[in-house]
């Protein structure tokens, strides 16, 4: 019964963060629009992961989506007890049988933003602000970013600063300021509610920034180059569809340019365009080219932990 018609989602934060949780919630809304019964819990603390999953499982929800890698542990705990229920972990990193991790190909999007940053920087210094150093998806994003920058400007300096909380916009703003003070003229990153602070910093200091949702363009239309607009709605719809079709089972599935049905995310400036008009056409074209290479498998980005290291 992969398809009970009832989908539940657990979110680690608030659905109005314009970022990670909002994207997940959008996915749930899309499933609802397709006629499914949905339920969700926000701000689910580590202490309550297992209990919440079991509760939904008992009440017949399937799949149960944990919208963060932090739900994987609980899913692996609960999964064997509820063999007929599917557990989808967004941004997870593994699984077996009815526990399935899906993620967007962070390394691809990080890499493309890196290329963009490398092309746009005048000072030869770019920076990024992120959280949770060392997690696979952070390694993918930040490592991909550094590799992307270096691929077009090997001599460029890439600084990454990690924060304790991904939900603290004021702290993110200060982190961005510290990068800008060190000479960075493009700031990227991967934060949740905190990301707005990063954009705000770029706006005030007049440097380029990349966002994580179209909402970020709205904060500083003139400073945002593009956003890694994560399409968790498409991902979840695709994943639920794939589940029904039996196309995915336990393990890790990444959505990116190599999965044309649901690419997981895209670089978007607004509904109409991919990039800020300030981005030279040549650069945009270059990036489009890279996307194609990724789609064909010709370009595979494989960041290491060291690529995602903090500091320069």
């Amino acid at each position, binding site marked *: 019964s992969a398809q009970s018609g009832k989908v539940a989602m657990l979110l680690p934060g608030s659905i109005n963060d314009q970022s990670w949780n909002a994207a997940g919630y959008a996915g749930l809304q899309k499933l609802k629009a397709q006629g499914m019964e949905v339920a969700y819990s926000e*701000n689910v603390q580590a202490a309550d992961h297992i209990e919440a999953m079991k509760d939904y499982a008992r009440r017949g929800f399937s799949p149960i989506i944990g919208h963060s890698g932090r739900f994987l542990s609980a899913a692996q705990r609960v999964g064997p007890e509820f063999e007929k229920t599917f557990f989808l972990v967004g941004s997870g990193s593994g699984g077996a049988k009815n526990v399935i991790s899906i993620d967007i190909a962070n390394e691809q999007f990080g890499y493309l933003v890196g290329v963009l940053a490398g092309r746009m920087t005048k000072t030869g210094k770019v920076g990024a602000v992120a959280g949770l150093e060392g997690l696979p998806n952070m390694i993918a994003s930040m490592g991909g970013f550094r590799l992307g920058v270096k691929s077009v400007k090997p001599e460029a300096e890439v600084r990454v600063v*990690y924060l*304790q909380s991904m*939900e603290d916009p004021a702290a993110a*703003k200060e982190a961005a300021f*510290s990068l800008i*003070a060190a000479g960075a003229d493009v700031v990227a990153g991967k934060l949740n*509610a905190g990301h707005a602070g990063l954009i705000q910093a770029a706006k005030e200091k007049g440097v380029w920034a990349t966002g994580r949702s179209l909402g970020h363009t709205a*904060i500083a239309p003139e400073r945002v180059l593009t956003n890694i607009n994560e399409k968790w709605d498409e991902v979840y719809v695709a994943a639920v569809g794939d589940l029904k079709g039996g196309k995915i089972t336990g393990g890790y599935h990444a959505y990116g340019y190599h999965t044309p049905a649901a690419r997981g995310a895209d670089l978007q400036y607004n509904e109409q365009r991919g990039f800020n008009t300030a981005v030279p056409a040549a650069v945009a074209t270059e990036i489009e080219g890279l996307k194609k290479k990724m789609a064909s498998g010709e370009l595979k980005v494989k960041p290491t932990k060291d690529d995602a290291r*903090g500091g320069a």
Partner: protein
Amino acid sequence: MIEDILAASVRIGTPLLFAALGGLLSERAGVFAVGLEGMMLAGAFAGVIATWLTSSLGLGLVASAAGGMALALVVVIATQRYGADQMVTGLAVNILALGLTSFLLRGFGARGEAPVLRVPTLAPWPIPWLADLPVLGAVLFRQPPLTYAGIVLALGVAVWLARTRAGLTLRAAGENPYAVFAGGTDPVRVRALAIVACGAIAGLGGAVLSLQQVGTFTDGMTNGRGYIALAAIIVGRWRPMAALAACVVFGAADALQLRVQGFRLPVSSYVIQMTPYLVALAVLAGVGRSARLPAAIGVPLLRERK
């Protein structure tokens, strides 16, 4: 470099400063200010809502103060009217504020979903001539209005506490409320007013975050700053200017932490993030003098009720 770090210290320290000044008033009057976190959050929230509704940052600031005061009133009623324990009441209103702001925010969106309310931020007001001073100009005189307000407020609170009869009464309420009563003033009223003032000022501290630094409200955006402000009060030994210094030092530790991360160090970001706290501990341990709490802090006033 030094200029950049100092300016960052002042920025990071500003919201802490407001909260610390408010908390200092409350604690000098004899009431633990554990609720600072919630008061800041309420202020941050009310400021954004009011600014969004009225398009006026001025009204937003007023609302911030009012938001903090509203939560402070809960503390007043629970602790002063009913004699509830100050520390738990503080913790309780922090939880309450976290939930209530998030809940009310949803009231502004369709279908109970939280909207994104974006408001303009308070722009820096460079002070003519002074702003062009080397180093000092960037650090002190090219700041947004609430930063100036914070510094002026610290001075004001210091002078008010030391030089006015009202300030004297407030301090006495924290040392020996019965002496205040015997002197002809109702210490419960003094404490109540101090808590309300604390709420207003801490609320403005929230506005520093939401209206001056970020331009929006997100759930729990104070992120523990109220507790750091409590630490700043103790480090500053309940004196306004010393608390200001403590806030700047905390700011500096954080600013340094971010900049140190920018270099390539052989340790992880988690270790570097510990440094502000370790530095604070090391400095305090180095100074090695114990702090004396206001003598009657936390002591409920047990008076006959008729």
